């Protein structure tokens, strides 16, 4: 049992100092900008919720939000089942398991811009294996010119990049299932499918929830990889929320609306984070038997 001791705050001070510096101060700046019109460095006018209203009505934002939701949901629909499947195929122990783990995890350790670059090259029909092969098969594949091709490429890139995370989580979850369950299932005459449905899947529930929430949130914040691959194009076909925000803030230098949108963006994720946190608390205390 934990003892109650407010002096524990001293142990937390370093963390608070570092994170507060890098998080609270900027956040305050954003809030500041979101309610002011900055005409010049010295002229600020308080405009209240005007920027928020403007942003909410912005059709470009709606478009980006729609594309973002579509992207995040597609990514989940592919990565979660695929991750479970691959985790089931991985060896349980020995040098083969170590090797498989290392090879599987490789895409996770590549800097995100290099991920974009790899697929940028890979998808080109002149110097890339994928682009060349697909075109040879008869499809007119061009991810810079065709919106659908761009979408598919971005999707495949993300699946390639992040499925390993789902695999690793599920793999760990599977290793935690005691052998006795499989032994009992054999004695009960259960089929392979029954073992998956009644033993493995229920025991993976907690890990899967974490995977789903993490993937949803991270895909919601994605920026670098699609930016390097397609630049958001063709047009704005693959422009998702983070890029929309960056365009507004840095590109067009519309600080007010950008700040307002930043807050809205942050609040959406906060909502998901709240759900994730409460779920994990429930998982944490429920499993402590």
């Amino acid at each position: 049992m934990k003892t109650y001791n407010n002096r524990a705050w001293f142990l937390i001070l370093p963390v608070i100092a570092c994170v507060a510096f890098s998080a609270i101060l900027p956040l305050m700046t954003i809030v500041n900008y979101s309610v002011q019109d900055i005409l010049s460095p010295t002229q600020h006018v308080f405009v209240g919720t005007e920027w928020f209203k403007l942003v909410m009505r912005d059709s470009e934002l709606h478009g980006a939000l729609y594309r973002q939701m579509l992207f995040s949901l597609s990514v989940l629909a592919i990565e979660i089942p695929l991750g479970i499947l691959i985790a089931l195929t991985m060896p349980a122990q020995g040098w083969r398991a170590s090797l498989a783990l290392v090879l599987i995890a490789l895409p996770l350790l590549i800097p995100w811009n290099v991920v974009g670059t790899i697929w940028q090259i890979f998808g080109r029909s002149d110097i890339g294996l994928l682009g060349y092969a697909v075109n040879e098969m008869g499809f007119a594949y061009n991810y810079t010119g065709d919106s659908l091709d761009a979408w598919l490429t971005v999707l495949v890139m993300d699946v390639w990049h992040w499925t390993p995370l789902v695999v690793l989580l599920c793999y760990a979850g599977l290793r935690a299932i005691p052998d006795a369950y499989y032994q009992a299932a054999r004695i009960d005459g259960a089929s392979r499918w029954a073992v998956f449905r009644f033993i493995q899947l229920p025991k993976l529930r907690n890990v899967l929830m974490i995977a789903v929430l993490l993937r949803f949130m991270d895909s919601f914040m994605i920026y670098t990889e699609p930016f390097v691959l397609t630049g958001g194009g063709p047009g704005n076909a693959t422009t998702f929320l983070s890029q929309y925000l960056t365009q507004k803030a840095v590109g067009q230098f519309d600080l007010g609306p950008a700040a307002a949108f930043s807050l809205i963006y942050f609040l959406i994720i906060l909502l998901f984070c709240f759900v994730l946190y409460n779920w994990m608390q429930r998982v944490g205390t429920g499993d402590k038997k």
Partner: protein
Amino acid sequence: MMSKFFTRPVLAIYLLLSLLPIYWMLNMSLKTNEEIVGALTMWPANLTFDNFKTIFTDASWYDGYINSIIYVLINMVLSVAVALPAAYAFSRYSFLGDKHLFFWLLTNRMTPPAVFLLPFFQLYSTVGLMDTHLAVALAHMVFNVPLAVWILEGFMSGIPKEIDETAYIDGYSFPKFFVKIFLLMIKSGIGVTAFFCFMFSWVELLLARTLTSVSAKPISATMTRTVSAAGMDWGVLAAAGVLTIVPGALVIWFVRHYIAKGFAMGRV
């Protein structure tokens, strides 16, 4: 369990497809630009290490790697150092606002980096830390420290409180106990934490690019300037990309035993 007849081929195919793009880049890095744009071949006809030579000899290239490694290491050390006492506090004590504090920490991990772009730019300019390794390290701490606290707390909670109490009875002061006894017991936890801090800091680039210009420019920024008058320098670009994978592959090889164990601590 699943019959090996079915699972091994599936795994093999997945690994093959997964490694293919990486292999392709390796393939390109060993060719000259002429060969690359000339014909599409699965391996180099004229194997050349010139692209790698360029990177190792051109300061503007290898500086990028060095800068990246510097800020990643600073971040790793700072994140773990700062997270250790905090994780201990969360693990052993309950205090006013502890649940809210933990939640607030997690929200930092969940904030889109794009949101921080402009404010960071202004903040770090103001304090004169623009274009320094420290700036990037500090900025990355925003999402690494919460993760570090979360993972370490999980490991620490696995050590029974009786160990602490025994040490105090034996006359250890808190700092001595923490350093000489406790840290050794959560060795693998620190390993896992360091791995994740490394991973997230090494791969993140939006903030790293924003906060640096010349002296602390990471390799990602350098990689965007491969267009010269002679056209795109594909060979060097590919070689640079291959080299960015190497540190990650090394780290994961060294911590491979801890990965499965670390993920399986019941929290993540």
